């Protein structure tokens, strides 16, 4: 077996991030059951699936925040899940943004952003701060450098979290339901940031329940069901003409839930 779905669809070059046969169980309950996924440079893959299908776990395993049971994770073609390899280097190459922002409440916006570049990447503080200011003003956060996170709205906090992840110049961004904890009025401003990143060609893996948005930014949609990717394809294909019954049912339920 040498050709995967990913190869067939956009097949050349080494993927920035790749999962091969990844399995993961929590206390005997399988959560990921053989995940194969490849994300090529400048592409955005959106993971959809019911609550508990394993989306967050997949991202956490990819960022080596959780240890996998079997299979491999590769970054730029290198296996990073060999027992001897330290996860630190991999985490430095990937950026992650969480549903609940997870900004550091005791640090100002600027300190939140420059902490990792300075401490983990050895960047000079002045350079890191300059880069941070550039990013902040690009995402409409100029003048917020000195504020503490609890003084910002949820949308602003999440944009700061995205800037914080970008500040380390990651090879790829992993975004885990970054708008789920937001007031509906603030979802737009955060999604706009992701659109902008997409236009710039940032490589991304995104989990979301916002189907319109998924359709808009995704190069590929993967439908996760009980720890397996049961269907994948271009947004126009998967949303319009899903092949599997599970996918159809999921999309149907989602449609009903989102109808006013």
């Amino acid at each position: 077996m040498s050709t995967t779905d990913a190869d067939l669809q956009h097949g050349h070059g080494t993927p920035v991030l790749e999962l091969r046969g990844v399995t993961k169980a929590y206390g005997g309950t399988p959560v990921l059951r053989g995940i194969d996924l490849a994300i090529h440079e400048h592409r955005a893959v959106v993971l959809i699936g019911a609550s508990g299908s394993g989306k967050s776990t997949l991202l956490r395993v990819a960022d080596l925040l959780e240890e996998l049971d079997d299979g491999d994770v590769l970054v730029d073609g290198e296996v990073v899940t060999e027992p001897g390899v330290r996860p630190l280097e991999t985490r430095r190459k990937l950026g992650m943004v969480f549903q609940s922002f997870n900004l550091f409440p005791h640090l100002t916006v600027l300190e939140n952003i420059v902490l990792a570049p300075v401490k983990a990447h050895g960047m000079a503080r002045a350079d890191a701060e300059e880069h941070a200011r550039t990013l902040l003003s690009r995402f409409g956060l100029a003048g917020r450098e000195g504020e503490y996170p609890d003084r910002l709205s949820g949308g602003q906090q999440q944009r700061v979290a995205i800037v914080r992840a970008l500040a380390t110049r990651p090879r790829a961004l992993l975004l885990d339901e970054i708008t789920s904890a937001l007031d509906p009025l603030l979802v737009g401003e955060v999604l706009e940031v992701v659109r902008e990143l997409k236009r710039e060609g940032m490589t991304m893996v995104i989990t979301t329940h916002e189907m319109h948005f998924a359709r808009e930014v995704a190069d590929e949609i993967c439908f996760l069901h009980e720890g397996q990717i049961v269907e994948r394809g271009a947004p126009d294909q998967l949303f319009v003409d899903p092949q599997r019954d599970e996918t159809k049912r999921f999309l149907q339920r989602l449609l009903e839930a989102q109808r006013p």
Partner: protein
Amino acid sequence: MMRPDPQRAGEDPAGDASAGGPTRQEVRADAKRRRATRDRLVAFVAAVVVLGGLAAVVLTSPGWPSVKELFFNRQQFSEHFPDVLGGFWLDIKLFVVIEIGVLLLGLLLALIRITRLPVLFPLRLLATVFIDVFRGVPTVLLVYLFGFGIPALELSGLPTDPMICGGIALCFSYSAYVSEVYRSGIDSVHPAQRSASLALGLSESQTLRHVVLPQAVRRVIPPLLNDFIALQKDVALLGIVGVIEAFRLAQIAAAEQFNYTPLLAAALLYLCVTIPMARGVDVLQKRRARRQNAAGAA
């Protein structure tokens, strides 16, 4: 979970002060001020009545004249106060030195207990035993055992001064408590904070140092200050192994004079330090409660 605030911070609705005549706002503010004045007056009168009543009961009791002579003797007070105050300086110095030791050793014990490194297992076991033992034995007993026991061992390298040995006992005893305070603070930092830090590429130790510990320490400052107050008082325990500090001096004077007023002088001195500390804790806790309410309401 934080609720996002739909209103952006900084976009204060501009409060415009219109000129001429008391506005509704001013009338309300005035009423509020009057109410506050009345409340203060009521509180004051109540305090006078209660305290005055208590004083009357004590002062008219049949034993009061002899109690006054034994405990509140003005001449005894002025005679011995300077001595006791001199001894109290030693209390303060001992307190500061021991407290610094407690803060460092307590943190070290807490860090040893939370590490998962297998190599550190023996150390972790040791720390657990240390904490169990020194929390489990009455402090006064520890001061006795260390203050008299360690010098009696006559081992070279070990201190022989009862003050140092007793001080070490106090330090160990309080470190055991304080390490648990630190640990509860560390446990109270949400695991997502750790995840976020690791995801940014910080190492475990960097995460501890820059993300977890600063938040943990901030949270435990009020309980730490409470332990400070307790330690400040317990320095007097060193008097029993012969350290001539305020309590011991007062005790000697009291025995010589058959009068307890010097002890009262010592008590007053302790209060001079512990009461401001207690108020400090109050202020901190109030400020924190206010901040939490603000965060919760946002």
